[in-house]
């Protein structure tokens, strides 16, 4: 019998206009309680205006052993960086 509550990943939006950021994880019996727990564990110091929780089991992660095939091919493809374009002055910082 499984007695552990499922693990939830917590994402918090600090301010309007920003995107949600992963802040940590916690245990809770269901999604609604996970939101309340996230409020108590991660927003005690005014950190957020919005909370998302996702059950950790639903996150599919890339495998560290696939690092070579997944990421190394991008190393020598410098032409994918936008540094070869002249950006007009009036566009401002990008």
């Amino acid at each position: 019998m499984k007695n552990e509550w499922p693990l939830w990943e917590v994402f918090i939006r600090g301010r309007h206009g920003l995107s949600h950021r992963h802040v940590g994880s916690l245990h809770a019996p269901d999604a609604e309680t996970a939101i309340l727990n996230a409020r108590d564990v991660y927003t005690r110091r005014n950190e957020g205006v919005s909370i998302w929780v996702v059950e950790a089991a639903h996150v599919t992660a890339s495998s560290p052993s696939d690092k070579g095939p997944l990421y190394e091919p991008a190393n020598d493809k410098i032409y994918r960086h936008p540094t070869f374009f002249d950006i007009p002055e009036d566009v401002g910082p990008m």
Partner: protein
Amino acid sequence: MSALFEFLLRQGDNALVLGHRVSEWCGHAPVLEEDIALANTALDLIGQTQMWLGLAGEVEGKGRSADDLAFLRDVWDFRNLLLVERPNGDFGHTMMRQFLFDAFNLVHLTELANSTDDRIAAIAEKAGKEAAYHLERSRNTVVALGDGTEESHARMQAALDALWPYVGEIFENDSVSDELAADGIAPEPASLRAAWDARVQEALAEATLRHPEGDFAHRGGKTGVMHTEHLGHLLTQMQWLQRAYPGATW
């Protein structure tokens, strides 16, 4: 003692004594998340205490601060409900007591936000938001454990049955409440019962808990006439530092 001062002590002492009780869980709750949530609740209640007892000291006009009132009064001076001085029991028992109190606190604060006394209305406005969150949390826990396993259901029913005789006192009117109601400062406690019943009955039904019968009520807490033996033990812990080292600060 003026009725207003007496009322403010009741408000402050409810928050203080329950806040202390809840703080006793710090480091002992069944899971880390609940531990932090309980500590947050306790801190909210101590914050409410500072506002109520701060105003009480101001109204009394003898120069006593919120700290003086919290740490330098003895059992017979306290005006909290017997419900909040009850020992914690198990986690379910604590959450059932919290739920019964939170439902009252929210209904009461909602009315107090319309008080003719602006200072009371301002405290009620701020404390009401905290009470709404406390109630959401304690209600959910009562429902989850009541409608949980056979074991959790039995424990929640036992907690409800044990605490029920302490409900009646919450809603008793007396000369203090009559005077404040006449001035529009605070509602009569009895007038809050219907709204409280509605919230509690709805949650108990969802929690599959049997609503206790009978209206026998222990009383004597909010009048200070007869506290239970538990309050003295609580105060020896809470007031120890000020009693041993009078005037100590940091």
